[in-house]
């Protein structure tokens, strides 16, 4: 009878007192329920941000499916509670629980955190505390769950290395399953202990990084001296894992369907991984190399399956640079053959201006119009050459011309400020480009008559990221960034141009954490004690508070954020091998200062080194040796 369905979880009694209880309800169609007495390992997949953000993450959808495809493993979801829920949890002594079973995290075997951005680190620590687990790895006893981190931030996991037992570097679809299977096996054979297990994982599973197995020493000037492995049988550098064949890579048959509105509430069809472009500021463009595409047949089949499982009315083709997908027309033709009839609209993420065409717009604009976003990234051709963004003003004007002819009136442009070699004239260039777009609107004969155009100029702050040609560069100080924002604001006078900018304090902390080392764990721990959380949210971010913590812990943030790192300096992330070599990154950096662009991978291989990872259907062919075949 219906009584059986009563929500019996300990937390359910407080859900009447929080906003959006649907964040904590669980019970969505597509959630995986298993009998806990029949599984051999329980995995808690934690997303250290709100439900709405976490449920929009493609990686989480994939890994949840991959882990649950093994009948021995039950993977459940955990999100950061919103502050009102946290208050209730602390008031009523409710530990952090997984959505599916409602069981506390301490009952799990393995807890995985996906680290999508540096500003979520305080949420990770807060979640561990809410789960009543020791924060530091060394304090965890034999009956504590193993805590593993993954995601983009693990390309330099050092600031959080002391809080994690291990990290999975690279694509996790098979790695996390292997990791959990090893855990099950060692438990079954009675030879499990934390230390034995972590050592064996580091030794036998490629991509597993166990920070406690490396001794870090420092020079007198504060820079890293060396990373020394504690055993000879583990790799001295951890090579990232990739899926070599995307067509046969795991694809989830089910998707957990949120009832409450999430950020990306739509089908996300992952078209390819990697990017051929090589923009010099872009970490994703480097660490996801080499490019691997899925075939249109496979994508069409997967899209239909996703539609049948979700009923979503919108499908977004996801890729770092969708217009570089070699078979885009064939794919959109296949999809449009059924999506129109089912009232499903296609949308594309940010488009490259040099490949934007009328045909493309017509394909994606069917049923419902999608808003148009372009990312020129810099305001002058000189600076665009420095960052290797191979697009011109003409490309942009052509693209917006097509858009205006097609009835669009608003365009969003993404830029960055604080890039290496930037001067005032580059900032002027941003304002000029926006003005040119407005003028292009009025020149366009087919524009919507009687409507005003609107151009949004969104300017983020450049942050040097590991494994990019700009990884050695100093970020602008918050004061410099603020002065530039003020300057640009003064240059934008047209009311049709809307200027958006980012919090400089957040960028500063992000820059510290992005290139940080293990000594930053002191600051993060102090941040936890100070009650910091949701730092990625402007409403919670406390810049003065962070500065105070740096002073108290004796750490100089400028050492990490605003210092030019030495060419020969040992970098904290040198312990990771993401495929791309340091000599390539240095070559690219020199070319940046020479204002020389580098052809994209499809035009000409630049020998970045990522081809050694293998990968089917990529664009690094003959030139890159046999692995690429």
């Amino acid at each position, binding site marked *: 009878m*219906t009584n059986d*369905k*009563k*929500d019996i*979880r*300990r*937390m*359910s*009694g*407080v*859900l*009447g*007192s929080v906003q959006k*209880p*649907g964040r*904590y*309800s*669980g*019970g*969505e*169609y597509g*959630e995986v329920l298993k009998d806990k007495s029949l599984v051999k390992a329980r995995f808690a997949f934690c997303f250290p941000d709100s439900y709405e953000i976490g449920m929009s993450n493609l990686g989480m959808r994939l890994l949840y499916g991959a882990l649950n495809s093994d009948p021995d493993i039950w993977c459940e979801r955990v999100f950061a509670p919103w502050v009102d829920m946290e208050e209730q949890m602390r008031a*009523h*002594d*409710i530990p952090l629980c997984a959505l599916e079973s409602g069981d506390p995290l301490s009952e799990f075997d393995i807890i995985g955190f996906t680290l999508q951005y540096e500003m979520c680190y305080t949420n990770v620590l807060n979640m561990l505390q809410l789960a009543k687990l020791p924060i530091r790895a060394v304090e965890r006893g034999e009956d504590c769950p193993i805590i593993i981190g993954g995601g983009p931030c693990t390309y330099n996991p050092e600031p959080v290395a002391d809080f994690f037992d291990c990290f999975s570097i690279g694509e996790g679809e098979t790695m996390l399953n292997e990791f959990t299977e090893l855990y099950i096996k060692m438990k079954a054979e009675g030879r499990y202990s934390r230390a034995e297990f972590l050592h064996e994982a580091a030794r036998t599973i490629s991509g597993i990084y166990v920070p406690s197995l490396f001794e870090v020493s420092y020079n007198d000037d504060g820079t890293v001296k060396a990373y020394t492995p504690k055993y000879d049988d583990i790799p001295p550098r951890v090579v990232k894992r990739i899926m070599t064949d995307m067509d046969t890579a795991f694809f989830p048959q089910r998707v957990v*369907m949120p*009832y*409450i*509105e999430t950020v990306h509430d739509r089908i996300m069809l992952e078209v390819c991984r990697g990017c051929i472009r090589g923009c010099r500021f872009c970490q994703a463009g480097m660490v996801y190399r080499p490019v691997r595409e899925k075939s249109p047949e496979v994508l069409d089949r997967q899209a239909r399956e996703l*539609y*049948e*499982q*979700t*009923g*979503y*009315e919108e499908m977004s083709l996801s890729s770092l640079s969708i217009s570089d997908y070699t078979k885009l027309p064939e794919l959109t033709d296949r999809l449009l053959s059924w999506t129109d009839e*089912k*009232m499903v609209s296609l949308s594309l993420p940010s488009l490259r201006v040099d490949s934007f065409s009328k045909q493309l717009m017509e394909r994606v604009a069917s049923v*419902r119009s999608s808003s148009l976003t372009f990312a020129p990234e810099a305001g002058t051709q000189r600076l665009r050459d420095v960052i290797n963004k191979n697009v011109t003003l003409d490309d942009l004007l052509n693209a917006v011309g097509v858009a205006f002819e097609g009835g669009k009136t608003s365009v969003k442009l993404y830029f960055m400020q604080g890039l290496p070699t930037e001067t005032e004239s580059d900032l002027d260039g941003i304002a000029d480009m926006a003005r040119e777009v407005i003028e292009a609107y009025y020149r366009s004969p087919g524009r919507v008559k009687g409507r005003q155009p609107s151009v949004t100029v969104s300017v983020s702050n450049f942050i040097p990221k590991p494994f990019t040609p700009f990884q050695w560069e100093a970020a602008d100080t918050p004061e410099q960034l603020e002065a530039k924002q003020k300057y640009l604001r003064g240059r934008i006078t047209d009311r049709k141009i809307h200027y958006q900018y980012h919090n400089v304090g957040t960028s500063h902390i992000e820059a510290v954490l992005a290139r940080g080392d293990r000594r930053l764990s002191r600051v993060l721990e102090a941040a936890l004690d100070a009650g910091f959380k949701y730092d990625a949210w402007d409403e919670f971010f406390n810049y003065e508070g962070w500065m105070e913590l740096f002073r108290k812990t004796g750490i100089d943030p400028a050492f990490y954020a605003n210092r030019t790192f030495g060419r020969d300096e040992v970098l904290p992330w040198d312990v990771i091998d993401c495929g791309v070599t340091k000599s390539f990154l240095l070559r690219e950096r020199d070319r940046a200062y020479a204002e020389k662009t580098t052809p994209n991978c499809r035009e000409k291989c630049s020998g970045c080194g990522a081809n050694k990872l293998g990968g089917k259907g990529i664009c690094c062919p003959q030139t890159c040796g046999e692995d690429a075949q």
Partner: protein
Amino acid sequence: MILTEQQIKALPYLDPPKTVRIKFRKAGRLKHISHLDLQRSMARIIARAGLPVWYTKGFNPHPKLVFGVPLPVGVESECELLDLRLDRDIPNEAVRDMLNAKLTDELCALEVREAGAKFVEISAADYSITIKTAGACNELAAEIQQMLTSSPLVIIKKSKSGEKEADIIPMINNVSAKYCADEDVVRLSVRLSCGQTENLNASAVVSALRERLGILSGDPTVEYCNIRRERFYGADGKQFV
């Protein structure tokens, strides 16, 4: 009975479309989903079920969904109603089964029939309320019974035009409160005015009891009050389906 896309396309086309009435359950963990979120999700549920939905004509085609009386968040129901237009002559059992193939037990279709009387005719609903509270006993049940059957029981009702005091006893009928010793809970069933002319939320009744009797004031992780809507009635006193 689950029909394939081909089988559905072979069914007779209906112009005008037919309207079916779906009775569905919303219970367990999904009681925490708001009416607005449910409305938004329903279009997707229907789409993934593969039903031959009739779309509105015009610039932004969408399915036509008409819900019965909105269910407050936190309340379970065994009798929610939804009218849906379909443009193929598909059997009612197929509609139910295809929906349930893409739903879970906590939110599922219980019955599908041809739509009858309009939802405005709904005037009352039965609720089962389970109260787990310190001090639950036969005497408490008797006190509740007494309180809900003797006028006046005045509460502050909030409406668009402001707050006003109202005696809710005329809106409460068929009261039965019993103490259930094996589960240590009080089981209360009531029929409350429900619908567009007069509406009394079950949670307002529970709040009135809480204020006057001091129940449900302990640890919220131990004490609870579970409200379930069981069935609707029309103005004629007959069950509304």
